[in-house]
């Protein structure tokens, strides 16, 4: 009897917390997404699907979806490929690998908010290092020609760099053409070190004998070895890395809130930031909740896709 009791108490706190902190809020969000509730007001009305409709109607939400998806589409491939590239380079080095590994992993660890602010300053249109260097590049012949493409015969006046040198360097975070790119860049900067570590682990799990077999079979160049052995054997790692990076990309918040607040012109209006802005700052709990539910669905789809792919692989090999 006492055995039963102790088992009970071991599990009950966790179960209670799971219900209260994880499961109940989902339902709360679900319910409120059908209302026009504001925190602090005594009552609220049931408005059915209106909130969800708003998400499809208003341009700011369309921009939100587009910005979030664009961000994911930019950040995932770059950070995955850079992570893979870094892992391949580092694992083939004779010495110094540990140092590069440490350096590339630093952004993953460092407080993103702090580093985002540092990046903001670096990208500042007037005093930032990036634009200062680019300005000097205007006067450096080979650099100017390279970036504008004038060495290939292109007209500098039609090139962004040519214009920038003639007029003004771009305002990376303040110009709606570039802001999303700048935020994505920071996202890639922060994420690729993580992917690198995952790929390094994946690389070490490839049986060495396969490379020897490939050599005996006639695979002579690194590229052929990569195609025949490395890339296919990294299959599970690929699925993993892409899913994790995608989910984390959907969750971007710190850089947006600190640097652009969704602007300019909602070009960096990401989903989680929208959830925060609408649900907390503007106290539009109904909309905020509907955003939450949509966000949850996106993430669920990504996670379940990963599970599907992993299972498929497990049954094949």
């Amino acid at each position: 009897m006492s055995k039963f009791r102790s088992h009970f108490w071991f599990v009950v706190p966790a179960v209670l917390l799971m219900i209260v902190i994880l499961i109940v809020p989902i339902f709360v969000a679900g319910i409120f997404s059908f209302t026009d509730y504001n925190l602090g007001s005594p009552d609220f009305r049931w408005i059915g699907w209106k909130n969800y409709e708003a998400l499809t109607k208003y341009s700011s939400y369309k921009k939100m979806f587009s910005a979030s998806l664009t961000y994911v589409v930019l950040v995932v491939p770059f950070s995955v490929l850079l992570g893979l590239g870094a892992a391949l380079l580092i694992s083939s080095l004779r010495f110094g690998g540990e140092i590069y590994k440490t350096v590339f992993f630093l952004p993953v660890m460092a407080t993103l908010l702090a580093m985002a602010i540092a990046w903001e300053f670096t990208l500042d249109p007037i005093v930032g290092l990036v634009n200062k260097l680019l300005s000097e590049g205007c006067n450096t012949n080979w650099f100017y020609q390279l970036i504008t493409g004038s060495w290939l015969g292109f007209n500098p006046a039609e090139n962004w760099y040519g214009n920038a040198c003639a007029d003004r360097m771009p305002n990376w975070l303040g110009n709606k053409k570039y802001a999303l790119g700048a935020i994505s860049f920071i996202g890639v900067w922060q994420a690729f070190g993580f992917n690198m570590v995952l790929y390094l682990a994946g690389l070490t799990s490839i049986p060495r004998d396969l490379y020897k077999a490939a050599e005996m079979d006639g695979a002579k160049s690194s590229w052929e070895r990569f195609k025949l052995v490395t890339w296919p054997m990294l299959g599970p790692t690929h699925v993993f890395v892409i899913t994790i990076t995608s989910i984390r990309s959907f969750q971007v918040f710190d850089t947006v809130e600190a640097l652009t607040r969704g602007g300019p012109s909602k070009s960096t209006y990401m989903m989680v930031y929208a959830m925060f802005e609408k649900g907390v700052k503007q106290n539009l709990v109904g909309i905020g909740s509907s955003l939450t539910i949509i966000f949850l669905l996106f993430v669920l789809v990504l996670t379940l896709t990963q599970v599907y792919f992993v299972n498929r692989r497990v049954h094949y090999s």
Partner: protein
Amino acid sequence: MNHQSKWFSEIIKHFILILGAVVVILPFYLMLSFSFKSPSEIQSISGGFFGSQELMLDRRCVKEGKPEEECTMLPIVYNYKAAFEEAPLLRYLLNGVIVTVSIFAIQILIALPCAYALAKLNFLGKNIVFGMVIFCLLIPVHAIALPLYLMLAKLGLTNTYAALVIPWTISVFGIFLMRQFFMTVPDDLINAARMDGMSEFSIIWKVMLPTAIPALLAFAIFSVVAHWNDYYWPRIVITGDRDLMTPPLGLRMFKSDMDGNEYGPMMAAATIIVTPLVVAFLLAQRRFIEGITLTGMK
């Protein structure tokens, strides 16, 4: 491949990696460097890494009516002094410590017994509980933020340590991780302890915990890093009380308080916030990478 071309390709690899390293380190370098420099040097990006450390005049101090000698100091002193004085940076750091330590401690208290029960004990509803754990693993933390905030607001618990800590006390990831680990502990070890008369409760802390140290360490790192760096949740839940701000939130407030000229102190504050984890990382890289990679293993 002959020796020469191997050498050459090695150099190319290093060249590419160094290029990457420069881009990666750039913000760290600038952050640190600007925390040493005077406003003019920051504007013009001059003065090398440490800045020329010429004595500068703190204009605001002069405006406050203090004598000039008192207001003249080295830029590095000015920056770090301002960082600690303009914002209660020490308080923020303290909050960070309190919050991360509390969260981790409670996580362990809740997760270990549950993991042990799931791994080694049999009880009615065991599968349901495990199913719940798996289900909850799917829930991203940002999805519950808004409703949790509402619930806490209704309870009047915003702007409290409780609000900062409570939502994180349940770490399904921790339960899952520990369960997997505990399952590898031989049953005989536990049976021997039972024969010796140990209560199940003692078994958890005296038998299972010591064997799980490596996994716990990795989890600790994962938890501490995630919560020290967390900006989203504190931003939502701490709405007015500066004394409760965690480091990232504090830095953000600092930023919105400061005008454009105070980059020096802001970079100093950023440096102070980022440094503890970076130093710990440099000292124990392997453990860190293990811990953070565990996030992904979900």
